[in-house]
């Protein structure tokens, strides 16, 4: 088990270098400079050397590292706010749906969560802005003017994940309720409420946590859409700047930070899988 965890953690290192090398080389190639001063792989090694000393180069007049650090808190707040909202609401709805399996409320929750996970984030952002900002005038359309400004972006980002987490929670709950231990508890006459909320809940937490971690990656990717919609100066906006201004340093900086974030999230997912089912670690080569 420990061996698996260690080797899985170390796996990030080659993945990180492959990802950055592929993006570095293809971006360099496509930029179409007539001749490179040095072979591309030498330039890559030099670049990574500088990166590890904290020098990501400059974007216009500012160091890329400062720009990245300035944008990071907005994206982190969005992603963690969104996943927190989605987890609480999703798990709650999933449990309710499972407890009332095949009743009307179950069908409604499942239908709504299916639709919620089909709506594109940018459409959801527009709908919320139309209703809450422009018609009701409750919340601002810009994300950074005041703290209320982050409410709509977080809700927008979290809502599609609610559907996914609700469906996973429902399945996990139904699986757990069919377990022998739960049947035994029921046979011993323990009240149904205690079974649902204390016995069953503990057993379903791990699959749900895995689902949440899986979703966190998607959510982080979605921040780029929400940041554009609500004018939030986060990492996603930086990535867009890098693309529109064709800025190499900024592009690489964003790829490094975001790539690392995705790999760490994925690592957490994999470790959670092992927690659910220790056999996963054994089958690992």
């Amino acid at each position, binding site marked *: 088990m420990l061996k698996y965890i260690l080797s899985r953690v170390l796996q990030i290192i080659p993945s990180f270098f492959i990802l950055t090398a592929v993006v570095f080389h293809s971006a360099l190639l496509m930029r179409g400079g007539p001749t490179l001063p040095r072979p591309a792989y030498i330039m890559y090694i030099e670049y990574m050397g500088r990166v590890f000393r904290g020098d990501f180069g400059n974007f216009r007049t500012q160091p890329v590292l400062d720009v990245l650090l300035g944008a990071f808190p907005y994206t982190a707040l969005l992603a963690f706010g969104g996943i927190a909202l989605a987890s609480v609401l999703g798990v709650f709805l999933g449990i309710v749906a499972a407890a009332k399996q095949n009743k009307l409320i179950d069908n409604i929750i499942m239908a709504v969560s299916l639709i919620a996970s089909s709506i*594109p984030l*940018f*459409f959801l952002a*527009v*709908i919320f802005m139309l209703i809450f900002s422009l018609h009701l005038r409750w919340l601002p359309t810009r994300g950074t003017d005041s703290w209320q400004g982050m409410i709509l972006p977080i809700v927008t980002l979290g809502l599609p994940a609610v559907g996914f987490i609700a469906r996973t929670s429902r399945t996990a709950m139904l699986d757990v309720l069919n377990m022998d231990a739960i049947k035994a508890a029921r046979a011993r006459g323990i009240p149904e409420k205690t079974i649902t909320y204390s016995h069953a809940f503990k057993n379903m937490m791990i699959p749900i946590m895995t689902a949440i971690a899986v979703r966190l990656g*998607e959510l982080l*990717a979605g921040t780029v859409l929400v940041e554009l919609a609500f004018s939030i100066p986060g990492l996603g906006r930086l990535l867009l700047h890098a693309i529109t201004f064709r800025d190499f340093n900024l592009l690489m900086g964003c790829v490094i930070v975001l790539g690392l974030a*995705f790999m760490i999230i994925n690592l957490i997912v994999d470790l959670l899988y092992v927690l659910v089912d220790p056999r996963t670690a054994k089958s690992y080569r």
Partner: protein
Amino acid sequence: MKIKSKKLRIFLSRKISVLAALVLVLMTFAAFAGPYMTSRSPYEQDISLRFEGISREHWLGTDYIGRDMFTRIIHGGQISMGIALFGVTIGVVIGLLLGFLSGYYSGITDSIISRFIDMLMAIPGLMIATITVAILGSGGINTGIAVGLSTIPSFMRMTRASVISIKETDYVKSCRIIGVSDIRIIMTHIMPGVLPLIAVTFTLNLGTALLIASSLSYLGIGVNPPTPEWGALLSSGRHMMLSWPLGVIAPGIAITLFVLCTSLVGDGLRDAFDPKSIE
């Protein structure tokens, strides 16, 4: 033929999937045949008719320079669905190839391909597509390629898993013993077992692909206006959404409907082809 009809029966018993399939067929027909049934152009401007409401002449009104919105949505459907189809086709070809290589030959080939796919799996599709467009540049073809790359991992994994399970069956083993060539084994014995699952993945990916493609256009790095791609339409409509909400709602609903229907049809197909449900 009996099993086939059984599968069809399972699919037909899921009424919501059947409805979704009908909607998809209708949308596809409208998008690909519609443009030939009207003489109206999605680019034809008439400044005297700007921001017209819904009428018999203009089913979804007109935009800020008097272009007919319904015509633009129909043409946009052809572009959005076309890009999604193009992208997923790239994904299925490369995914199948990699899946067969790594599932059938195992060993070092498998290790390298699987590791690479694992790395890609860690990065969400939208991000893979965004970085691809950052490298290749925007435009319809590049958007399709970007979307296609993001669907490779799901096809590869699906193919690899089913190839491995079929490879271990007795009939494939005996084929090998009597000296049937690899190509022949793959084409006549393994492929038929893999294809149904690929069809399911293909359907599910179509929706995701369209979602990612329209997201790229919304971000301004996919298909650019005035091309009426659905994401681009929504993006240009959002600057005047208070005075003209139809400009964002119409393309938004079109995207949502397509994504919802593909996922319902995909689920229905999965139920039909899942060996466990054919009892």
